[in-house]
Structures are given as C-alpha cells and as structure tokens.
C-alpha cells in the first residue's frame, strides 16, 4: 500500500483505539456501549490489514491472543455473575455501590461492559482471521 495510507493509518490507530475504549467505558453515561466499542477494536485489524499486510496485523494481535481474549471476556462476565451469586444476590445482579452519573460508580456495569467489549472485539478479530483461513497455533488442521 502507499506510504500515505500507511502513515495515516499509523497515526489514526491510537485515536480509534482510544475511541473504542471510550465507547466501552462510558457506555453508562453517554451513547455507545460495549458492542460498538468491541467491534471498533476489531475494525482496527481491518485497517491494519488494508494498510499493511495480514501478517502485520497478525503480529500485533495474533489469533491466539484473540482466542485468549474471548475466553477471558466470557469468563469475566460469568465470574461477575457468580460473585453476585455467592454474595447472596441473584446471578449477574449489580452488587457494587453505584452513583448515577458518576464515571466509575456504576457498579458492575462497567466491569461487565469491559468483559463484553473484550469478547466482542476478539470475536470480530477471529471472524476476520477465520475468513482468511488463519487459525491459532497448535490447533489441528
């Protein structure tokens, strides 16, 4: 790809990433949310692929990382639910203190959003890789 596109994409990458994180973490005070943020993270891979090569994208986020990430996300979500269960609340109930409008005091919402965001992002990356016939190391062909 041309130098201009590469330079621009290199420059724009952190902004997209920060925007995605913003979408995930402030989903409870402003529009956005975990799903949009997650897919935005996944779109970064598409950008790297389009500007450089697939191998460049793979070097930054490998298939294995994406796998680990989605399992981590799902487990994080379930762990939050189970902790609530063990504390005597219902499964996935909000057990942390919460203050309306506060950036971090929305109970487990922010943690759940983080889990969902990681999961959705990694799923998107994996969808992308799978369509290119990539698979994580050690997985049998």
């Amino acid at each position, binding site marked *: 790809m041309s130098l201009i596109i590469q330079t621009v994409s290199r420059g724009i990458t952190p902004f997209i990433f920060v925007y995605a994180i913003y979408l995930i973490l402030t989903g409870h005070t402003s529009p956005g949310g975990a799903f949009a943020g997650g897919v935005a993270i996944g779109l970064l891979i598409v950008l790297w692929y389009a500007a450089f090569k697939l191998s460049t994208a793979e070097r930054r986020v490998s298939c294995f990382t994406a796998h680990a990430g989605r399992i981590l996300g799902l487990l994080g979500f379930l762990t939050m639910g189970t902790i609530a*269960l063990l504390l*005597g*609340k*219902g499964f996935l109930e909000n057990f942390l203190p919460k203050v309306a409008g506060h950036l971090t005091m929305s109970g487990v919402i922010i943690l759940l959003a983080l889990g969902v965001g990681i999961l959705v992002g990694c799923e998107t990356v994996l969808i992308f890789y799978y369509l290119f016939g990539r698979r994580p190391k050690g997985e049998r062909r």
Partner: protein
Amino acid sequence: MSLEYAPLIAISLPILSSFLIPIVGRCRPKFRAYISVLAISVAILAILSLLPTILDGGRLHLTYMWAERLGLEFEIYADALAVYMSLLALFLCLLATIYSVSYMAGKEGLTRYYSVLLIFSGSMAGVFLSGNLLQFFIFWELMTISCFLLVLHFQTGVAIRAAYKYFIMIHLGALCLLTAIIAIYLNVGELSMATLGGLLATANGGWLTATMVLTFVGFGVKAAVVPFHTWLPDAHPEAPSSISALLSGIMVGTGVYGLIRFFYGIFGFPYAWQSTIITLGAITALVGVTCALAQVDIKRLIGFHTVSQLGLIIMGIGAGTSLGLAGALFHLINHAFFKALLFLMAGAVIYEVGTRNMTRLGGLRKYMPVTFVCGLIAAVSISGIPPFNGFFSKAMITKSVFDAGYPMLSLVVIVVSIMTLLSFTKLLYLVFWRQKTSKVIKSRKKVPILMKAPMIALAACCITFGLFAHWPLEQIVLPALGGFNLGTAPVYAPSIFDPSLMILLSYAGIVLAIVIWLKRRSIMATVHRFAPLSALYHCVKSEWWVDSVYLKFTGAVVSGFKGGRRVMSGHLRDYVAWLIAIFFMLLLYAVLL
C-alpha cells in the same frame, strides 16, 4: 470449632478439596490420593463430632441464610438417620479411596478420578444431611453426575454405553423427583424437611397420590426397583471396582434413604400402598436373584445381587411397621458392608488375574487366601447364614412382612436367601475352589496391603454386626427410627436360637440350598428336559427381557420421529412456505375468534 459448622465441613470440605487435586496433581501425583484420604477423614471426624448430640436423642436443624432476596436458605437437618447414613457413606468412601490407591495405580486420568470421587463423597454427605428438598435435589444431581463420570472412567465402548444408560435412566427418575418436589412446593409452599412432615400428614387428595407415585418412581430408579433396575447390572461391572463398591454399597442406598425420608417422614406411610410396595420388592428380589444365578461375569453377578437385596429392603419398607423399617435400615447398613466387600473382593481378583469371566478362573484360594476368606465372609453374610449380619436383618424383614399379613411374600425372602446362597456357592467354587487354574494366573501381581486393609475392615464389620447384632440395633437403628411416628411397637430382635417359624425355615433353606448344590447336575438335566422349566431358564438367561422391551420401545419412538424428516426438505423456500402457511393459519384463527 463449634458444632454448628461440622455438617457444613463434612459436605463442603471434600467438594472444595476436589478443586485442589488438579492443581496439586500436576507437580505431586502422589498427593492426589493423600488429599482425598485426608479430606474424607476430616469430614468423618466432623460427622463424629455430631454423635454426642445425636446419642442424647437430639437433632440438629441449622439454617444458614444465603440468598436473602430469593429466600434461599442452606439448611442442615441432621437427625440420627442422616448422621448415621452420612457416616456410613463417608466411611465407605474412605475405604474405597484407600483401596483405589493401589487398585488404580498406574491407570490414566487419576486426577479426574480422585477429584470426582471427592465430589461424589461430599455430595453424598450433602444428600443425607440436607434439610431442604431443593437442596436435597441439588446434591442428588451432583451425586448422580459425578457418579456418571466415575462409571465412565475407563472410557471403553461398553463403559460409555453403560454410563449413558445409567445417565438417561437416573435422570428420568430425577425428573420425576423434581416434579414431585415442585408439586409439594406448589401445594404447601414449604420445602424444609423439618416443617413439611406435619403439613402433609393431614393433607389428602389426588395431587398427593400423584406426588407419591412420582417420588416412588424417582427413588425407585435409584434403588433399582424392578422395571427400572436395568441400569444397575450394566453400570456396576463397568465402573472401577472401588467405585462399584460405592455404587452398590451406598449410592443405591440413597434411593432407599429417600424413600424412607419421604414416605415415612414427609408423606406419612400410605398403608393403602402396603401390598403394592411389598409385592414390588418381592418381584425385585426374585428377578435380581434369578438373573444373578445365570451370570458368568463376576461383577455382573454381584450387581444383580444388589438388585435382589434392595428388593428385600423395599419389602421391609413396604411393611410399614417399626419392625419392618428397622429391618430395612439394618439390612441397608449390612448390605453396604457386605456388598462393598464383595465388590472389593472382585476387584482384587480382577487386579490379580485380569478377567471378570468366572469360567476362566479357578483355584485362586491358594494364591489369595485373604481375599478368599473375606469373600467367604461376605458371601455367608449376604446369604443370611447365622451368626453373620445378613441373617438378623433378613429375619426382621421376614417377620415384619409376615406380621403385616403377607405370609406368602415372606416366604420369598427365604427363597431369595436360598438362591443367593446357591449363586455365591457357584461364585466361590468357580473362582476360588475348583482345581482348574487359569493361565492368566502366572502373570499375577501380589495384592498389596492397601487393598487388603479395606477388605479386612469390612469383613470385621460384617462379623461384628453379626455376632453382636444387638449393639447396632440398639445404638444405630432404633435411634435412627426415632424421628418417625411409628408407634411404640417393640422391635423384635432376633436371635440365632429363636425357635420361631421363620428362623426354622431359614435353617431349612440353608439345608435345601446345600442339597440343591450337591445335586446341581441332575437338576440342570431335569431343567433341560422339561419344556416349561427350560423356558423359565431362558427367561432367566435373558434377564427377563426387561431390556429388550425398553429397546423395542425406544426403537419405535425413534422410527416414529424419523417420519418428521420428510418435512425437512433442505430448501429454504419450503421452510419459508411453512412459515407463511402457519402465519396465515394463525391469522385466520385470530380473525375467526
């Protein structure tokens, strides 16, 4: 440590330490067994600390608030029955774990084995100690599923089939049980065992009968009552022998425990059902023992004896008197001892020789005398020869059934005893006695002390409970029955020299069995000569066709569903056409109404 947490420890310590095993087992493989033994021993100690309270005639009813908003409580209801049963369960688990240190050494998947075994023992203690029907069901399922994994352990094709069958049958039963529990909750609004008894004793109506039928089926599957027994002779041989001992010794006992708990403690005994339950028990006993006679697989034979002994226990329960219940409970305890011992004996034989087929065994008594003596003790105990423990409990069951007004059915107990004696004579003769020694023996390993010790302990229990039968009757069985309102009818404690009709009959039975054994060749010739007798023989040989009836039924269901495949043409257009057509139909329905 106060008494309050003892039951909790007994339940949760094995379950929690099972999570430790995969972590520790990775670097120190030997520690897996040590942790298991340690956890179960501590659990036993925790239960033992409850004993003073129980012996004073008290009972513990503890509630731990858990999920307040959902109104869920963790309830412990520890009366004498629960404490003794959980003590028995954990004791057998301890013996089985010690046994499997040597028996399972060098086999694959030991991490899974030990951790699932721990979950199994903890959940069994949970079943016995839980004081809430929902919690009871949760532990019940935990026990069932962990047992499924244990049956599956060797992962051979036969084992997988057997485990699958076990899983399906037991879960159909569990579904019935869950339905019954939900029905109880919907009608009474209470799940605590402590308060349910009074609520339901006065209730009547159709739903109660339906609930009772469902409960009976639910526990009956576990306790291998006859139409539902077919999982047992398949699952028991395929499990590792230490697990078979647990399965047969105590897990089927949970079904009996549930029956006692529900039918005496919660519903109040339905005297209208007396004849049904006793008859079912008698049929179970007869079917089990006749099938056992025809087996050549050593573990399958012992498994069928489990069916028959459970039938006897069900008869005792069905009598509905304090004597019958005492006999059933005593027999349950005795059965746990001698059946576990028999399976451990079979495991030792398999360990040494490597085959389960009795026709290929022989002359083992010279090579493994300890195993032989233990097997002999277990065999005479299960056959009800005085002064071993099986005799007393069987006599109590016989007398209770006789007193309840079913003299013909009480004879069944005698007949079953005769056949049991016969089939164990056959087992001991084929495996240990006859001169033919199989070739496999030459590559034998020596049975290690860790396998002998549990067998010796169980044999000692059999002898103790037999020679001093009054002690367990007075200290264990009678306090355990204290929780149920059965009146103050004196419990008849049989003795060897009691000149009552039943005792005399059982002596006569022993003599008859010996005569039949000596004349077995001519009897078999007669059987083959007479058509009705040989038809009966074929029935027994094919295990009364219960399984093939099931297979026919499921085959019919499956072929019925195959017709549905025609609708699935594989073209999206057809599916959309179905959707649209059904939508139009719904619309028409809405318009017409």
